[in-house]
Structures are given as structure tokens and as C-alpha cells.
């Protein structure tokens, strides 16, 4: 049951992820990306990680993608206005993407993917209660440092966006 569900979801995820890349219209691309994020949310759900699932749902689907759509709508992209990238840039892009794929494949081979797509040692680990306990006991320092990092990024963004007063 959960195996076939996993393969179905993986197929949907990859299908929409590919459509993001191949879609001609940037708005369609962004909407396919929303679907990809939704499929990833479902992946979290079958791993019983409800909190991560709902946070992924709120943050990626509800906030980040809305902002991306928002900015695309302003840009009015089409073939004529799209700047043509130089072939050097394209070449660099291909190489870096290839390196990323090499790393990913290496990581997957190293972990030794068997027949079982996933297996939870502790099925309750993703529930809010357990996650909170782990986050505020064992990983308190990294958690706080990450929040300070986010705060500084926010302050930086506000500073950059602010008009200079002369």
C-alpha cells in the first residue's frame, strides 16, 4: 500500500518538476512548481511527519510561491524581452548542474538504496510534540542560531530596500 503510494507520489513529483523546467510560460512554470511542492507535502505525510508537511504547505505553497507568482506577474516575460544568455553562461550552467547530479547520485549510491523506499525507525518522530522536544532540548543552540540568522537576513533585506534619504 504505502510502497505503491510512494512510487505514485514520486512519479507525480518528478512529472511536475519536469514540467516546471519545460513549460514555456513562466506563470505555468510557477503553478507546476506549486504542484511539485504539494506532492512533496504528501511525501512528508506518508512519512507521518505531519508538522513538516503542514509547514512545507504553508511556507512553500502558501507564501514563497505566492511571492514568486507575484513578481512574475509584474515582469510580463515573453520571448521578445527575454535576454539571451551567452553560450559561456549556458556552458557553466550545464557543468554545475552535472556536478550537482553527480553529488546526488553519489549520495544515493553511498546510502545503498535497497528494495524498501523508506523505513521509519520511530514512526512518531515527526509529530509536533516529539519534534518540539527535540528542537528545544537537543538542538536548542542550532535552532536559536538559525533564527538569529533569519532575523539578520530580514533586517538586511529591509535595509537594502529602504530608500536613501538625502
Amino acid at each position, binding site marked *: 500500500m504505502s510502497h505503491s503510494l510512494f512510487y505514485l507520489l514520486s512519479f507525480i513529483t518528478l512529472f511536475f518538476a519536469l514540467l516546471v523546467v519545460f513549460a514555456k510560460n513562466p506563470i505555468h512554470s510557477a503553478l507546476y512548481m506549486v504542484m511539485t511542492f504539494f506532492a512533496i507535502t504528501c511525501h512528508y505525510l506518508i512519512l507521518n511527519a505531519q508538522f513538516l508537511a*503542514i*509547514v512545507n504547505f504553508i511556507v512553500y505553497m502558501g507564501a514563497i510561491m505566492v511571492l514568486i507568482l507575484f513578481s512574475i*506577474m509584474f515582469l510580463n516575460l515573453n520571448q521578445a524581452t527575454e535576454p539571451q544568455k551567452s553560450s559561456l553562461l549556458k556552458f557553466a550552467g550545464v557543468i554545475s548542474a552535472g556536478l550537482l547530479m553527480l553529488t546526488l547520485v553519489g549520495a544515493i549510491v553511498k546510502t545503498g538504496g535497497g528494495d524498501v523506499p523508506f523505513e521509519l525507525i520511530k514512526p512518531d518522530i515527526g509529530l509536533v510534540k516529539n519534534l518540539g522536544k527535540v528542537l528545544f532540548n537537543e538542538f536548542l543552540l542550532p535552532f536559536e542560531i538559525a533564527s538569529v540568522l533569519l532575523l539578520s537576513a530580514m533586517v538586511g533585506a529591509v535595509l537594502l530596500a529602504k530608500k536613501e534619504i538625502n
Partner: protein
Amino acid sequence: MDIAFIIEKLILISAILGISLVIAMYTTLAERKFAGFFQDRVGPNRAGPWGLLQPLADGVKLFTKEEIIPTHASTFLFVLGPSLSMFTACITTAVIPWGQDLFLFGRQVSLQVADINVGVLYVFGVVSLGVYGVMIGGWASNNKFSLLAAVRSASQNISYEIAMGLSIIALLMMTGTLSLREISEQQAGMNWNVFYQPLGFLIFMICSFAETNRTPFDLPECETELVGGHHTEYSSMKLGFYLFAEYINMFVSSAIMASLYFGGYNYPFMHLISNPNVAALIGVAAFFTKILLFIFFFIWVRWTVPRFRYDQLMKLGWKVLIPLAIVNIALTGAGILIFGK
């Protein structure tokens, strides 16, 4: 999973969907009646006694009107917009606890479709999806006014979601749970959260107005500046869906406010009633009374307060509500530290 369980849930889901649609239908009539009262008019009174058949007449009119899809619009997305609006408006009802458990035919029947342990976050997630309907519809119409409305609505929703989330955090610090059922249970016996979280409730309510695009925050469809806003190009039932989704949203956010802050299905002297079924049914009635009062409040505000200007809206969201919500979190934290829970 047995058959009885599936049948029970199917009946419950259909009943909830039916009730929310009927309430939304009659809210449109109530809105026009109250608007008439506030403006010293009669309001609709032709179709049926006291205009009671007016919503049906409106529905028939919307269904039979000609459907127009603009030539340069992207057809699929143009249809997707209103559908998505309607869909996101309806799915929040899944986690709302409508009453205590009933005991029917030797079974314990829960009056909640799904008691997921991240209920509050689920509501929040669906709220954040709500903006897609307007954005997709506005963009797909291929009209400048619609696009502007879509962009406005996106920025409005994102801004007010933050304050809404912060006000919920203060509530969750007190209740210690994300399940709407447990939050409702904790408020038994007039122990309503609004008495402990008046500021949080105020912020939450203002944000609900903004998220449902009701006046004074109905900038996405601001007629004076944007013709018809995001639904300028829509006709027939697709327009109907947009308008109707607003009323369902009103119903749902009233239900959320009632269950988070106003005790949900709890009412005074509940423990004195010995028969659990009777107690539960009165609880459902009490819950719906609270919901209807909130809906009345939505209507009341709409016909009393004029629309904000766009910069006022942003100023209120970012410079007033978010700092207030953060102060509220600090106050709640201090309160829990001093008085215990």
C-alpha cells in the same frame, strides 16, 4: 476501517457541505436585507415572502447567463481560478469540531470530520492557499485591472497572514495544543479564550476580515479604482463562484473564531444536562448561534465602515497589527510565567 465509519463520515461531510452552502446562500440575502435596513431601504422583498426566495432567483440567474471567456485569456487557468476559490473556501470545514460526540445506535459518532493534531496549522495553510484563486483568475483574465487586483490581493493576504499567525501563536502558548477539538474542550464552562486573549482575538478578527476580502479590506474588488477587480472579466456562474466563495469564507472564519476564542460548542451550565445527546445537540445549536452572530458582525461592519486606502491597509498590517501581535505574545508569555496556565 469499517463500512459504518465510512457512511458516518460521508453523511457528516455532505451535511456540513450542505449547511455551509445554505448558510452562505442566505447570508447573501441577510446582507442585502441588513444593507437595506442600514440605508433606510426595504431590501429585496419581491421573490417569495420577505424575499426569502431571492437567493434561489439569483442562483438561477447566474446559472442561465451567457458564459464569456475572453479571447486572449488562458482558458484552463481562467476556469481554474473560481474553482480554486470555491474549493479552498470549502475544505477548511474538515477540521472544525461542530459539537461533542453523539451516541447513536451504540456508536460514538464524532461531529468532526478529521481530528488531525495540527488542526490550527491546517486552517492556516488553507487560508494561505485561498489567494491562489484570485491570483490565477486575475492573471488569466488578461486584463490590466484584474491583474492589479490579483497583485493587490496577494500582497494583502501575505501581509495579514503574518499578523494572523502571530496572534494564533499567543493562543497556542496558552492552550498547548494544535488540535481544534482539544482547544474547544479546554474552554468548557465559560472558560473562553477571548477573556484571556482579548488583544489576540482583536488582531485575529481584523486579519480574518482581510483574508476574506471583506470591507474595509475589499481592495481586490475595489470598484472605484479597478472596475470589478479580479472578476472584471467573469460572467455567469464563474462570477457566482467568486462571490459565493466570499460568503463561504465568512461562514468558515466565523466558525474558526467561535471555536478558537468563543468556546466553540460550549455553553453555560452544560454539565447540568445529563443526557449526552441532548447536551451535544444544544452545543451544536450554541455553536451555530455564535457563528451567525459573527456573520452578522461581518455584515454590520461592511455597511458601517468605508474601504481603506491601499497605503492605509499596508500601514495597518505592517506597522500596527504585527507589532501589536508581538507585544501580545510577550504579554502572554509573561502571564504564563507569573500566573501559570
